């Protein structure tokens, strides 16, 4: 060892493992001519030599494993939805408390979230509505031309946008935009123990974090949906004018004559329900985040997926409901 100039822990480990193997095999192994520094290093490493871990046998898969896993996933899913229900119940209870003591509502965070989730979403929602209007008018006109029924493009655009698409697509955009933001913000607060700190200080996280977001969305999602629908009508009218020569004046006359205001009302009625779904799922997923960064990511994506899925399911239920009522 006298010729060794530099030795690091990896080298020391290699020497010591060789020694261990040699001694196990009954061969002599001696380390000689150590410098003082290297002796110290070898001693430190020898002290810390990890015991080789017993190799764990891999357990061969049994036929029931797949079934057991399926069962676990179903049970996990059920538990998850029960949790969400419980959280929703808590939020409703706090909302009730707020009705009794309206003073408990903080205006500053409410306004802040209204700006974040509402006002700042106006450009994207407007653009989306406008483009959807254009697409519908364009596709509708090519199909309706075959029947000589071009003028009904107005009805097609108006009814589909006012009743369904305007509000549904707005909800989907808001779920992607604000639902994910809610989860990420609350989730990172959870990771940094800010939520625990709030609890200890006697601040209720639902009052402080969830309710302002929920109320902001409930107020502003109908407004956003309305803006998107109007933009959609403008887009539709523009395309009808360019493609079919239906002037804006004719579009307006046809719109007022044929399209009942009920369509717009039905569309807007759904908005607050969608808002509750997005806000509650976003906040609940945020609260579920545990210690690591991975979990923040997976809960954020879960929040968006679940919110969009539930929005579409509820929209379908509404369709059936209104159809049965003959609206």
């Amino acid at each position, binding site marked *: 060892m006298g010729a060794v100039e530099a030795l690091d*822990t*990896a080298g020391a480990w290699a020497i010591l493992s060789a020694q261990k193997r040699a001694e196990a095999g009954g061969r002599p192994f001696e380390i000689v001519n150590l410098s003082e*520094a290297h002796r110290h290093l070898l001693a*430190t*490493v020898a002290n*810390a*030599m*990890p015991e080789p871990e017993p190799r764990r046998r891999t357990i061969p898969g049994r036929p029931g494993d797949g079934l057991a896993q399926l069962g676990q996933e179903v049970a996990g899913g059920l538990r998850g939805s029960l949790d969400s229900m419980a959280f929703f119940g808590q939020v409703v209870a706090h909302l009730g408390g707020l009705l009794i003591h309206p003073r408990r509502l903080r205006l500053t965070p409410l306004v802040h979230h209204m700006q974040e989730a509402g006002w700042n979403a106006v450009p994207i929602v407007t653009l989306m509505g406008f483009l959807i209007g254009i697409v519908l008018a364009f596709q509708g006109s090519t199909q309706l031309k075959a029947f000589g029924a071009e003028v009904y493009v107005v009805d097609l655009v108006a009814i589909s946008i006012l009743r369904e698409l305007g509000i549904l697509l707005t909800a989907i955009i808001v779920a992607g935009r604000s639902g994910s933001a809610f989860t990420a913000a609350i989730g990172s607060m959870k990771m940094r123990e800010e939520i625990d700190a709030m609890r200890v200080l006697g601040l209720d996280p639902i009052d402080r974090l969830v309710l302002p977001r929920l109320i902001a969305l409930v107020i502003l999602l109908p407004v956003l949906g309305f803006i998107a629908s109007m933009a959609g009508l403008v887009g539709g009218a523009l395309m009808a004018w360019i493609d079919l020569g239906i002037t804006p004046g004719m579009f307006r006359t046809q719109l007022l004559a044929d399209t009942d205001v009920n369509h717009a009302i039905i569309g807007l009625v759904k908005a607050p329900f969608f808002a509750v779904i997005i806000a509650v799922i976003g906040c609940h997923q945020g609260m579920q985040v545990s*210690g*690591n960064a991975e979990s923040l990511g997976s809960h954020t994506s879960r929040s968006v997926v679940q919110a969009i899925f539930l929005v579409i399911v509820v929209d379908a239920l509404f369709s059936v409901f209104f159809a049965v009522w003959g609206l």
Partner: protein
Amino acid sequence: MAREVVIEVRGLKNQFGPNVIHEDLDLDIYRGEVLGIVGGSGTGKSVLLRSIVGLQAPRAGSVRVFGVDVRQAPRAEMARVENRWGVMFQDGALFSSLTVRENVEAPMRERTDLDPETRRALADLKIAMVGLPPKARTLFPSELSGGMRKRAGLARALALDPEILFLDEPTAGLDPIGASEFDALIRNLQTSLGLTVFLVTHDLDTLHATCDRIAVLAERKVLVTGTIRELMEVDHPWVRDYFHGPRAHAALLAAEG
């Protein structure tokens, strides 16, 4: 005796908005010493560390590590320098989605071509060297106590057998027993591995127990450097308060036993 300078900081200037943290800061760190950095809150101890390891681009000045300018060196040269230092952040800064062992293996995986078995054995060795029990190997950072996280952070900093070790407040938040164990650990690793240690700390006991030399940050630069004995003679209000306060006396008594 001319000692080899491994880190050379010259004319460093750091500024956040109108707030000047460092101005004309000079500092030399010699091979094989443990240098303690002390200073009041907000004097830029951590900022100095971040400037040296290249996480913070200074406004002016140069930082040379092993003779390589960390601000101007090409990628490949910088990578060679990075292989020769290890950094332990204040709370460990472990990757939260990896287990302790995977955390320690991460730099080896990235920077070496060791086979998985050796990598794993070396990671286990580092984990044992910093005094973590074997069962900690497969735990995630969120399952560790604060002291264990610091040790795991140290194990990761040591993964590539660095020559320079940067430690940011290694004993902050530890109980006194844990803290003195940590001091002994650093001292022991330093002597057996021949490390150069750059230690940012508030802890007077750590200064007494581990540091060969201390640099005091105040008035935007390194005010003085020297051994504790030398610094106790310095006539500057902050330095006097720091080394003659009640805590300093207790630490001195403890160190002299």
